[in-house]
């Protein structure tokens, strides 16, 4: 049985109320252990979903489970009923497979959920809350997630601005470890892009801001160097990637600046990412030879295209999973899952290996 709520059933302000704190999860497991009607359970608690997978004693119903959940987590029962969903039997397996594969995610095909799914399972195991049935379902879910990523394009292409920018930088420079990066300004989009570049190995990061203290603050976070705002125009030729996110009424960087800069760089390409609205780079900069200029619209268009492609893949994934769902359900029903207990050692290392990078 599955009881839960997600971004599909509840808006953010409602989900916030249902969210379980990190300390709340062990408490919930302890309470469930005391409940004789709940035989097995796994709690999946992420920013977009709270789900309780359970095996219950015959006669114990959804209402009973929901009541129990609301009582333990101090949640308004009527509100929960309005915004929650429930699944039973074979549909629980399909749901688990779909969640682990990223099909149910808000950003379709994202791989972070795979890690969260594994973590939820391991936590449940630590609390000795999983038994033969959920053990099997979760292990098969890990395999299902890998299967969909290998055999469909559900995780293909980047769907966040930061990752799209990073993928583009890699199309120009291959390895980011030797690429010199300059961030002009700050803001959420710039920081996320910087985070994505940093996580892909960028090491030489320089930050400039109208307020030097803000540049220093961001620099500390990414082991970067802060540069004076008056100095950076004289250093432009030294950077391979420039990300600008300054609040300005007219472009701060004109094509005339870049012609001599590119001459100094002698054939080395330069990747410019304009995250400012209004734009920080004049559109004419794109005409300078060896300069690749992308603004926030370009990046968003690529992300949206990738997301659309992933959505087309959902049906393919479901078809791929359906057969496996049927097979697992038949095994559980016919052979009796209680006879097949899995120890920790039975969990194949490959099932617990990290998900392929997005």
């Amino acid at each position, binding site marked *: 049985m599955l009881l839960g709520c997600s971004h599909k059933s509840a808006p953010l302000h409602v989900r916030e109320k249902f969210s379980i704190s990190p300390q709340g999860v062990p408490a919930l497991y302890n309470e469930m252990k005391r409940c004789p009607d709940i035989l097995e359970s796994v709690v999946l608690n992420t920013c977009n979903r709270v789900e309780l997978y359970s095996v219950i004693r015959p006669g114990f119903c959804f209402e009973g489970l929901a009541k129990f959940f609301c009582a333990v987590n101090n949640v308004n029962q009527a509100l929960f009923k309005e915004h929650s969903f429930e699944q039973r039997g074979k549909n629980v397996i399909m749901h688990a497979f779909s969640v682990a594969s990223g099909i149910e995610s808000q950003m379709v095909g994202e791989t972070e959920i795979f890690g969260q799914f594994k973590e939820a399972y391991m936590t449940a195991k630590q609390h000795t809350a999983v038994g033969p049935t959920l053990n099997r379902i979760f292990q098969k879910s890990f395999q299902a997630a890998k299967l969909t990523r290998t055999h469909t*394009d559900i995780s293909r*292409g980047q769907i966040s601005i930061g990752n799209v920018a990073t993928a*583009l930088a*890699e*199309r*120009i*420079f*291959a390895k980011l470890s030797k690429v010199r990066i300059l961030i002009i300004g700050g803001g959420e989009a710039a920081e996320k892009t910087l985070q994505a570049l940093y996580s892909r190995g960028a090491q030489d990061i320089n930050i400039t801001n109208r307020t030097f203290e803000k540049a220093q603050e961001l620099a500390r976070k990414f082991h970067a160097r802060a540069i004076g705002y008056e100095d950076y125009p004289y250093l432009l030729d030294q950077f391979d990637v420039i990300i600008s996110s300054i609040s300005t009424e007219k472009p701060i960087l004109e094509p005339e600046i870049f012609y001599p800069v590119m001459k100094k760089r*002698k*054939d080395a*390409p330069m990747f410019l990412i304009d995250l400012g609205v209004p734009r920080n780079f004049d559109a004419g900069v*794109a005409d300078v*030879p*060896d300069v*690749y200029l*992308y603004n926030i619209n*370009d990046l968003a*268009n*690529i992300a949206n*295209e990738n997301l659309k*492609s992933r959505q087309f893949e959902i049906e393919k994934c479901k078809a791929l999973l359906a057969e496996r769902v049927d097979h697992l359900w038949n095994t559980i029903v016919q052979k009796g899952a209680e006879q097949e207990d899995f120890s920790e050692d039975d969990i194949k290392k490959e099932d617990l290996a990290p998900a392929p990078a997005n």
Partner: protein
Amino acid sequence: MANYLEETRTLLWMGTVLYGLAFIFALASLILERHYSRMIFYTLLVGGFFFQGIGLYLRGLTFFALPLTNPMEIVQVISWSSMLLILMVQMSFRLVLLGFFGTAMSTILGLLSLSIAGWDYPNLASSFANPWIEFHAALAIFAYGVFGILAINALMYLLQHYGLTHKRFGGLFALLPSLQQLDDLMTRLLLMGVTVFTVALFLGTLTWVSDYKSVSFHTLVYSWVLWISYFSILILKEKKRWMSRNVGWACLILFLFVLVSLWPIHTY
């Protein structure tokens, strides 16, 4: 002997067909935006390479020398050298799509050389009496092979540049190697091609000086023009006087010129 040539032609045809199948297999996967099995692709490619190699080897056995006696054989050896280099480069650089473009080139060259009537004729008269001339010819053709893979690399560079400038990301563009990788490889191949060609030309010129009848004057002039062209591109690139995309265009056009001029040069 005619029968023997016919048998080796069958082997060369088999090589071309396998290259063609590898290319079509990868192309279909790219059009359908599906991941293609590298195992199938490389089995077909290596199969093509094997049959082509055996065909050329048996031809060479006919006169105990490199099979470079007519335009068909020359084009086949260029194609085989390119494919050998592609397999070697692929092992060290792991450049995605290099094999794909390589099979396209080898299919075109294979079809061209085997289909044109009159390109494949018994020509024992032009087999090499002087081993230095044979060595010169082998090096020159190997250099052409390097220039062939250089042209593929240049095409990939130009496509990647086009994709980035015009914001194209799907299909082929999503799989191309990075600009920097392609640029690095372009420089290395240019250097390698020019070096091998320099040695080939040096040997050819020395032989011509000692026995001017052994090498045709037109071939020598043509080879020097080609050498000067590639050498100039290398210098311009190294000195950063030419942008990489100009170098790419030049390498692509120059290799087409090499292919187009093979026939008239051989008739001299």
